[in-house]
């Protein structure tokens, strides 16, 4: 029997779930190998009580999210996160850089009753153990399928630890740092094929910090190219305000 998969969303723009709909070429094939029990974006029914693989999008921002994640972890044998919000806390986690209540008031108005039980926004792994991760904002559809395959086969899928520059070189891109742009590929986890730099756009760090990156040396690189070295940290915060414990 095909493993039952549920797809749920926490705090996010659901862009990564939309990306799943963009796998048109393989969507039917995918449905041959999984029993898609629930898909928050596309389902009108409720989540089943039993499932094997929980796919989670979004950052944890409320106690309700915390409870949901604990339930998912308890029920599913495999938990897989998709997207930057789930992986690093992403954009929602930027709120950690200011007073949370003040941030909610600024966005929704003073005293508005939103996000009850709100908590400091964070990645999924800050609440439960995660088995597989598809980083990126949004996720790459091929990478999603590759990681899903690993999960279905029970194979380990460690994320690469090195930064973006090597694959960018194989694309024969002229280094954006030499073209007057601050590119975060120096410290960002590889695996996307250097998509943005290959289109002439600097890397914004959506795949998270490369564990093997040399942040100190990268600051020096920025300084040597005439930039303010603190810009590396400031820009990297966009998707990586929470850095501790992110794998």
């Amino acid at each position, binding site marked *: 029997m095909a493993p039952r998969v549920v797809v749920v969303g926490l705090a996010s723009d659901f862009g990564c779930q939309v990306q799943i709909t963009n796998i048109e070429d393989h969507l039917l094939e995918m449905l041959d190998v999984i029993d898609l029990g629930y898909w928050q974006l596309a389902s009108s029914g409720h989540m089943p009580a039993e499932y094997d693989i929980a796919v989670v999008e979004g950052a944890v921002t409320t106690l309700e999210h915390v409870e949901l994640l604990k339930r998912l972890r308890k029920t599913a044998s495999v938990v897989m996160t998709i997207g930057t919000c789930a992986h690093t806390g992403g954009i929602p986690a930027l709120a950690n850089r200011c007073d949370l209540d003040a941030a909610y008031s600024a966005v929704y108005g003073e005293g508005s009753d939103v996000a009850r039980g709100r908590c400091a926004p964070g990645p999924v792994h800050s609440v439960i153990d995660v088995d597989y991760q598809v980083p990126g904002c949004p996720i790459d559809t091929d990478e999603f399928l*590759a990681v899903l395959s690993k999960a279905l086969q029970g194979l380990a899928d460690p994320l690469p630890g090195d930064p973006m520059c090597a694959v960018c070189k194989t694309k024969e891109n002229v280094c954006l740092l030499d073209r007057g742009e601050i590119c975060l590929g120096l*410290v960002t986890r590889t695996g996307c094929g250097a998509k943005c730099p290959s289109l002439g756009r600097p890397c914004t760090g959506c795949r998270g910090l490369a564990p*093997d990156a040399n942040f100190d040396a990268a600051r020096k690189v920025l300084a040597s190219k005439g930039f303010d070295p603190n810009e590396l940290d400031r820009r990297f915060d966009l998707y990586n305000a929470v850095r501790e414990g992110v794998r």
Partner: protein
Amino acid sequence: MFFRVVDKERLPDLIAGLSSDHEVIGPIEKDGRFVFAPISDPSQIRLDYDTTLLPPKKWLMPPEETMMHFNCADEEVTDDTVVASPRVLFGLHPCDINSLLLLDNVFLQGHVDPYYKARRDNTLIVGMSCTPSPTCFCNVWDTDEVHWGFDIFLTDLGDRYYASLRTVKGAEVLDRHVDSRAVTEKDTADFQQVVHEFKQGFSNNVDTAQLPVLLDAKFDSPVWDDFGSECLSCGACSMVCPTCYCFDVKDRLEVDQKSGARVRTWDSCQFKEFAAVAHGQNFREDRSSRLKYRYYHKYWGYLSKFERVLCVGCGRCTLACPSGISPVKVIEALQAGGSR
């Protein structure tokens, strides 16, 4: 080897002629730098190029290639054989031609790599003389000259090329596609003058005397930590290196969970995972040891096996390293003694 002289204005005839039955790969401009890419019109080619972003190895060993397909349901494995159409690498500088000879040692001796060999056997090499740029240091390895490993080598004499014909095939294609004439004493005198001026043009004259001894004697030098602290472990140096040949092998499963492909991709000894083995052990955990390993392999390990260093002084790593680490700087620091 014998020689002919080709007027410069006749060169497009050679490129056009080769294009009739070969894919011609030559240097073209990309965002202010150069890449080796297929040429559809002889006017695209930029023979004034200094160096290219990626070396010519990408046309013999692409950054990613499929080695085999498999199907678990049928327990079938199909080797992917390279169907290599005739190809010309046009305008290669001496350093890059020398780099292919170093790769040949690895891929064509002993266990022959069929993917590399298929492409190599179908590739004609037309070399071109160059002008030393500030990052070149081929002079210190004697890779500023090339005496084999090409079919035709064209030395720019201003209004004409001094064509060295190394292979019968090279002589045949030159004869077939372009008007050439016999070499005169004046041509050879001009060739000697051009070579003399070329040799004077190098700005890096790093002392490489007794480098293997120096490397072994300086194994614990603080120089390695100095450079290691600046290394981003990004692997850019390996990707752009014309002589780095390491690759990683991965299996990719199709959505059907039955079929898949085995692919190989360029790898780098600067990646932490490179020396990781079972039980979580890693021979080169810290980046200083990885950087050091790169130098020991290039300038000692390969040398001890093939009697050449695994570097042709093309300077691509110097241009690609965001931190500006270069072999010239590292060797100079070792020669100087302590820290930089």
